């Protein structure tokens, strides 16, 4: 049995924040889970996927084709009265935001939890947008766990809050909560719903937001989120510690750095710390109570001044003008990248005018003798089929005299590492699926030979509609679909195109070639290559290049790591 579904109350286990969320959902009797993988959220889906193949469970799980679909799957489950959870990385919520904004209007019946994993410092992402702003944008309650144990507790609580206010609840983690491992105490698994199906009760005046309905629902949303203010106000996730003359407000992992700084600077008796876990709606009275007890407040939060701005609004509304706020606006803390414990400690020292620091002994010694060190960026694995495809395309371009005019729009996956020398074949990237859409734009605006690269999972995620666009609007480029039969980068999740399947998983395969043909690409302009058969591959690519038409090359060869894991003997 998978350890996360063992019914062992009080058992203590070291869990990743992501695993703790899974455990929380299991304890809360989750019924439907959907996800599209993305670091740092991936282990949530991976664990649900593993567990869902166990016969002892009673929830449905799927890897959906993208985050928008995943959120729609979860929304419908909640509308049918079942508890549902959807998880994604921060940029995934952009994809799902069309659902999010209106789902907030129509609301939910069964509790619905949206797990959103932000990535400050962009450890594995193309941007570090602060998705707390989505909670305010959509008017949905939001919780920010500080530890794996709290991630589990918040997941359980989020279902209850969701059912109380009839809205989905966002749990916003960051890399340092998702990928921190800490002790988590198991609770009871409450299996009250057995395995009955949900029932959808028709109510077009609620569920079908045509303008007349949407107007009513917007009003209902504002009423519901106002109810959440009281819940946030009374929530144990928001706590005031200490009674000192100096105020600190913090949230998420930044709270941990604050607590450690208070301890190491030995300033406990000087600090009143409002430690926030329920950050939207913000607990207004608790903030007013802090503001009326101190003259200075440092606001410690990663990325955008989300709490800082909210505090300033409250100050204006309450006519509080005798408190100085230190934070992003005073430059004491940066708006970019994740914090470190030292950065937070230094900011507190600066704001409080503390000069002596017992931790000075921890100053790094002189390291000027260290020579310039070679970098070690991540690379495509030895023997990775993507390398072979890139090399074959490069050879074909050289042999056809097109190498100098070629540009390479690329996409999100392992193959983005084609950016690095000696391959150097990634020129333009925005987001999932952008290789195809931007190729349309380059085709309309330049005379370059355009060769774009996209993986199989990314193609299903958001490569299909721009390919239809390319056909319809007569764009001219070569799309190379790197089909390695898995979603490799995020940990080998299945996607609709896979032909190699993990044990116990036999969902039908959707043929990429047939999809491409269905998009309207002319059948003679679609070729399949095996990148390891170098000469054949180069020959086929050259023919396609010389056609100068919209074409698709499907380069088929499984990810070597995945093939080794699934078919160790073959």
């Amino acid at each position, binding site marked *: 049995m998978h350890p996360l579904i063992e019914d062992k109350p009080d058992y203590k286990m070291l869990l990743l924040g992501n695993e703790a969320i899974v455990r929380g959902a299991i304890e809360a009797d989750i019924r439907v889970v959907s996800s599209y993988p993305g670091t740092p959220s991936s282990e949530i889906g991976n664990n649900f996927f593993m567990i869902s193949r166990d016969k002892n469970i009673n929830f449905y799980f799927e890897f959906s084709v993208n985050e928008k679909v995943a959120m729609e799957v979860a929304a419908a489950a909640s509308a049918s009265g079942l508890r549902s959870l959807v998880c994604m990385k921060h940029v995934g919520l952009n994809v799902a935001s069309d659902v999010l904004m209106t789902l907030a209007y129509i609301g939910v019946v069964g509790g619905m939890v949206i797990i959103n994993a932000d990535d400050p410092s962009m450890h594995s992402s193309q941007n570090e947008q602060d998705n707390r702003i989505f909670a305010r944008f959509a008017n949905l309650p939001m919780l920010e766990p500080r530890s794996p144990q709290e991630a589990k507790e918040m997941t359980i609580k989020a279902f209850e809050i969701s059912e109380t206010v009839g809205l989905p609840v966002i749990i916003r983690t960051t890399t340092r909560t998702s990928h921190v491992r800490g*002790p988590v105490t198991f609770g009871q698994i409450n299996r009250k719903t057995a395995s009955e199906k949900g029932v959808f009760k028709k109510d077009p005046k609620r569920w079908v937001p045509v303008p007349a309905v949407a107007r009513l629902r917007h009003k209902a949303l504002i009423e519901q989120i106002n109810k959440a203010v009281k819940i946030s106000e009374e929530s144990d996730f928001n706590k005031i510690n200490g009674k000192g003359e100096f105020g600190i407000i913090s949230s998420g992992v930044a709270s941990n750095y604050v607590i450690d700084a208070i301890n190491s600077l030995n300033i406990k008796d000087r600090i009143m710390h409002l430690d926030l876990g329920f950050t939207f709606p913000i607990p207004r009275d608790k903030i007013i109570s802090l503001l009326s007890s101190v003259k200075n407040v440092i606001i410690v939060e990663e990325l955008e001044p989300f709490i800082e701005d909210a505090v300033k609004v409250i100050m204006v509304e309450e006519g509080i003008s005798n408190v100085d706020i230190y934070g992003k606006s005073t430059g004491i803390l940066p708006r970019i990248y994740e914090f470190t414990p030292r950065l937070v400690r230094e900011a507190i020292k600066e704001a409080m005018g503390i000069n002596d620091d017992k931790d000075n002994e921890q100053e790094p010694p002189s390291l000027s003798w260290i020579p310039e060190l070679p970098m070690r960026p991540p690379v495509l694995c030895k023997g990775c089929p993507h390398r072979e495809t890139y090399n074959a395309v490069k050879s074909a371009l050289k042999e056809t005299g097109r190498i100098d005019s070629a540009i390479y729009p690329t996409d999100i996956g392992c193959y983005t590492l084609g950016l690095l020398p000696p391959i150097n074949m990634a020129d333009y990237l925005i987001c999932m699926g952008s290789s195809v859409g931007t190729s349309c734009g380059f085709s309309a605006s330049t005379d370059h030979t355009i060769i774009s690269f996209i993986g199989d999972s990314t193609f299903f995620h958001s490569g299909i509609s721009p390919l239809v666009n390319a056909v319809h609007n007569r764009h001219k480029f070569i799309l190379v679909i790197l089909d390695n039969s898995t979603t490799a980068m995020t940990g080998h999740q299945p996607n609709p195109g896979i032909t190699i399947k993990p044990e116990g998983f036999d969902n039908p395969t959707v043929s990429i070639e047939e999809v491409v043909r269905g998009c309207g690409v002319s059948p003679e302009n679609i070729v399949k290559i095996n990148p390891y058969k170098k000469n054949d591959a180069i020959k086929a690519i050259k023919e396609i290049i010389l056609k100068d038409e919209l074409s698709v090359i499907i380069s088929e060869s499984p990810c070597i790591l995945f093939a080794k894991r699934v078919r160790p003997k073959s």
Partner: protein
Amino acid sequence: MDKPMRILFSGVGGQGTLTASSLLAQAAIREGKEAILSEVHGMAQRGGVVESTVMIGGIKSAIISDGEADVLVSFEPLEAIRALIKCHKNCCIITNINPIIPFTVDIGGPQYPDVNYCLSKMKETFRKVIAIDADSIADKSGTKKAVNVVLLGVLFGTNILPISRNSMIETIKERVKPKFIDANIKAFEMGLEMV
């Protein structure tokens, strides 16, 4: 409660860095101590630098700022040098001496540093530096993959941790696949003897 301790593990994707940090934290938990870890997942694991931390003694922050590491365990010498910025001068440094040359060296990047020179400078700068050939010890123990357990052995050999050797051995027995237990225990003991 034990004195707070920040332990940094550094290595190259695929070397077993995360397993080592996780085993250590489990040994701490086994003794009822508080322990948290931070890990690197995703893109970096494709042959890039992998760093993980283990914090014991009730520290809430899961990452290590510059100059904060009490212990550095590195699986590769270049990555040990790169991680020195995280260490204070009383830090205990344990490093494997076998280089894994990054591809950037071959394409005109900076040269791989002179390991012997850097080791001697490290010994001048830091309180304790232990440099060993963990690969060949692992090989002698019966499994090349036990480099991480050899390094854990060396770490326990220094006696700086508030965790007993026995808890570590029991954790290894519990977490390692049955057919590799003997080799891993041997690797751990050979690591212990290196100090």
